[in-house]
């Protein structure tokens, strides 16, 4: 088992490739890019009716020793500590490797970061409900979020033809302080009626480090990385 940080980096569309190349030079093991939509309510973007911003989400797997280098690169070269330049956050991971004979880790182990300052809430919902979910989350105290289009794995149906219906999904990703996470999560659960069968799920990942996240509008300070 190799542990490290999965760094999620959300930037404007078109930037991810350059970022990925630089990160790999710095020792990131693996990077995957997918397309998302930002939902940050900026007054000016709202004014021009373009508040749905097109984003790229870069998922980097960075081994423990290289994390510092990647973060300082993000700050000096991509200025993520400034507003509207993008955000980055880390979720601890374990990579599975077959030669690893170690016993299965118990739940409360340190790498699980049970007391991380931030939480990344992920809601998987029916396609088209991402915006609605964001509204609810914002009403419950979330600051912003990113919507990614995905599809479900498809439950095999009992049809005559072997059809796998792939339900289209929206994933909403919200990074929020640990203290406000329960309220947002419950708001999404309650208001998006996730108790209905198959309506969706919401879960949280611990976030150990962030860059470029602003807690309050106007306060103008980056949360310490």
């Amino acid at each position, binding site marked *: 088992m190799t542990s490290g940080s999965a760094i999620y980096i959300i930037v404007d569309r078109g930037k991810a490739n350059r970022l990925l190349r630089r990160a790999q030079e710095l020792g990131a093991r693996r990077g995957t890019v997918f397309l998302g939509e930002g939902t940050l309510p900026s007054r000016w973007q709202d004014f021009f009716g373009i508040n749905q911003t097109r984003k790229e989400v870069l998922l980097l797997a960075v081994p423990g020793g290289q994390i510092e280098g990647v973060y300082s690169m993000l700050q000096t070269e991509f200025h993520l500590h400034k507003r509207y330049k993008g955000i980055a956050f880390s979720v601890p991971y374990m990579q599975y490797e077959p030669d690893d004979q170690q016993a299965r880790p118990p739940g409360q182990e340190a790498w699980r970061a049970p007391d991380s300052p931030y939480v990344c809430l992920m809601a998987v919902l029916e396609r088209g409900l991402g915006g609605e979910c964001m509204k609810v989350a914002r009403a419950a105290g979330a600051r912003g979020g990113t919507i990614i289009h*995905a599809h479900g794995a498809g439950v095999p149906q009992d049809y005559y033809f072997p059809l796998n219906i792939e339900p289209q999904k929206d994933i909403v990703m919200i990074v929020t302080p640990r203290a406000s996470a329960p309220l947002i999560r419950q708001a999404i659960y309650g208001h998006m009626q996730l108790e209905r069968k198959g309506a969706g799920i919401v879960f949280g990942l611990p976030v150990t480090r962030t860059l470029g996240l602003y807690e309050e509008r106007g306060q103008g300070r980056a949360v310490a990385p």
Partner: protein
Amino acid sequence: MSLLRQKFSEVSRSLLPVMALVLLLAFTIVRPDSEVIWRFLLGSVLLLVGLAIFLLGVDLGMNPIGDHMAVEVATSKSSLKVAFIAFLLGFLVTVAEPDLLILGHQVEAASGGAIGALPMVYLVSAGVGMLIIFGTFRLLRGRSFPAFMALAYGGIFVLSLFVSEEFLAISFDSSGATTGALTTPFILALSAGLSRIKGGKTSEEDAFGMVGVMSAGPMYALMLMSIITGQKHIQGEAAEFAVQQGGVLGPLMNYLPKELLGSLVALLPLTAFFFLLNHLYFKAPRRELSRIIKGLVYTLLGLTLFLTGVYSGFLDMGQLIGRAIAGQSSWLLPVVGFLIGMIVVLVEPAVIVLGQQIEETTGGRIPGRIIKATLSIGVALAVMLSMLRIMIPELKLWHFLLPGFLIGVLLSFRSDPVFVGIAYDSGGVASGPMTATFVLAFAQGAAAIVPGANVLVDGFGVIAMVAMAPVLSLMIVGAVFQRKARAKLREEVTQSVKKAQLPQGSIEMYDCVVAIVKRGLAAQAVDIARAAGAGGGTILHGRGSGGHDLKVFSMDIQKEKEIIFWLTDTRVSRGIAAALYEQLELEGEGGGAVFMMPSGALGLEHPVAVGLREETEEEKAAHPKEPSTAEEMLPQPGDAAEEASSD
């Protein structure tokens, strides 16, 4: 007959306050000849009957025509045809508008013949046609309406920097003239039809706004004309006022044939176009066609009676009231202006049509009464401010118009979307025939008495103000509505947080297992994971690199990837990872990877993942061999991996 009676009661409810106010003023301050009062009473009766019949005609004739046209436009296969029909509709309803021709003659006289009346009418109609094209494309493409209107008004603002104040006033007035009694209901019906066909979530808000779009057309046309021809100043005096002669019935007899002819001409082009298209495409059934023809006849008859009543009974009265009050005392003028604006706008035909359509389209969510109340307060303030402007020459028209429209446009981004469309419509809707006659006459009467006021500029300015004020007032109400809705949502969210019964599952800990595989392998991965004890996964399409990228012409060609994630019990996640790793042969550079991220033990009072469901009995029965949920794996957590591979 009940429909007609309903129209009668609706019209009389709005008309009675007007009559009460006018008669009160007539017997206390104005004291005109009894002849004028009798003509006013007769005019009111004609207005009542005419408007009721007209509204019936709109229901029977105009609305179905608008519907048919909307279907034809929206279902066209080429964008050229959409543009062509949209342009023609805008052009035809405008070109025959009698008010526009009258304005054209005024402008021709005032400009000393430099601007011909007919070229101006064609130009304005073409402007409307162009804007209807843009509006139709905007609606069908689903682009943002506030942004569209902000652009349209931004353009008008830029152009207005290059034209004189007189021309600005005339441009606004021409937009008031084109949104007449006939065009507005038709355009309302057209956009309602278009939004119904387009459907979707925005169909409510799409039903409104086309009148607002249309009313920008004349302003563009006239301002561009002023800039291109260099025509800047318009001199001229309003015609000398004289109370009409000929007894009680004289003016009526004078106006009736004129209005009949005018209304007929106004109705003809659209009707002809409809029957042409009907012959070619719609082929409406006979019954419907006969209803439409009846409706058109009602429209013609009602409009004629209405306009005759207004011109013969209200025009003189307005002038006399304006003169008398301006001569009486200065503070009374704005007050009376406020009252007149407040109640007269409710007798505008288009206002009544709009109110009906709002209730129908929103299914009563937005009561027509709120809109009407907001509209009448807006117009009341507009007329009051116009009176102040007449009294204080330092106040210019643009002192009100510019900030008014600016705030309106800004608020439109913060307003309830349905209100935005209605607000932009209301400008054209409020500046209809009643404003153009009674309120204008009142203002001109006052301007003629107050020293230093310019009858021409101040008179025209009133209509511009009436067109602006309701836009602003409705935007404000819309913004309040929106705020309330947001607060309501917040409240509901809090409620649902309290109500939400989070399942207290037996599983306290989850892992988020993430697999990154080559595109196309996701389905296989899902099956493997399912066999190893995972539930359903969620798949993302991504691109990425793990290892060496392919280079083509020094461009990186990245590999297409699929990312799948599952939420699994911590006790089975390792088994799932092992199964995925082995069975997908992820070893080697660039093959793929499996990660586990902790999702659980977050110190929260409930399990972090909610909404995960267990498979139902039927589903279990359908796949009896696969241990498909984490629950089933629990009895032998230690054997998860082996069991998965033996499966």
